[in-house]
């Protein structure tokens, strides 16, 4: 299990941030290589992410659900479950957003197996850290 904490800034009021974070059509494409392939309900989507490693790439396909939401505390848990397309591995994550005026925080707890994990936990953590940092920068314009 890899756990990471990040902050993000939007400069927008809490109500705007809360609505934006719960909108999977806006959130998922802000993950580099991520896209929604099908909306299955207001709180869930089928999605995929292509992680480019130069000429090589790894594709994960799965679901993203708003598993928990606390409208008073403006805290939401987005649960990601995905499998490595063409492989045996998986990449799952519980991503907790807590938003306030101006931005918010993200706590990520990720579990990754298969080829990606064979790089070693330190490498996976470094790449995940870079991926989420890039995501927080893209949230600035959500």
């Amino acid at each position: 299990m890899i756990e990471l904490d990040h902050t993000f800034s939007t400069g927008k009021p809490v109500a705007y941030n809360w609505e934006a974070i719960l909108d999977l059509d806006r959130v998922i494409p802000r993950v580099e290589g991520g896209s929604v392939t099908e909306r299955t309900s207001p709180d869930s989507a089928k999605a995929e992410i292509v992680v480019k490693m130069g000429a090589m790439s790894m594709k994960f396909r799965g679901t993203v659900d708003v598993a928990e939401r606390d409208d008073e505390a403006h805290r939401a848990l987005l649960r990601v479950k995905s499998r490595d397309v063409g492989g045996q591995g998986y990449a799952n994550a519980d991503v907790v957003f807590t938003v306030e005026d101006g931005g918010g925080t993200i706590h990520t707890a990720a579990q990754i197996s298969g080829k990606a994990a064979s790089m070693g936990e330190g490498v996976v953590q470094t790449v995940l850290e870079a991926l989420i940092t890039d995501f927080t920068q893209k949230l600035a314009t959500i």
Partner: protein
Amino acid sequence: MTRYVLGPDCGTLTVRTSKAGAAAKAGHNLRMEVTSWHATLDLGDQPALALTADPSSFRVVEGTGGVMPLGDEEKAAIAKTIDDEVLKGSAIEFNSSHIDVDPSGKHLDVEGELKLFDKRQPVTFALTLSDDGRVAGGATVKHSDFGVKPYSALFGTLKVADDVAVEVDATTRSQDDD
């Protein structure tokens, strides 16, 4: 003067890159061949070496290391990336400025300038010359010497190492011109 004319019909010009960065394990060390190049080595009172290579003619021969094996499709994609995003068609030329030939005539210390990424930088390397006309040697070229950042992916955690090895190994008949 004795002139050796070298090219892909009689030898190989090999380029080797290695991987660097925190996610280096995900990448491959590459062995590439330049499939279109031409060189002349003149020996005599004023030894000289000149080489030109087509920047769009790189072919990935082998990739070692990495999490996943490198297939033909990925090899072709790397060659295209090198052409489109790295070299971008900029000319590759080397011209010697001075060559020391040892008394045996078999070892040459070459100094000169390499034109790459539209810049010229000094490069030195050693060449050996065999009786059968084999010319072999290699040089290390650094991205940083040319003010170029090595290609990177995965948010900069996986990149090509600064040092790139270039090797020539060719066997050709000399053309004596007295």
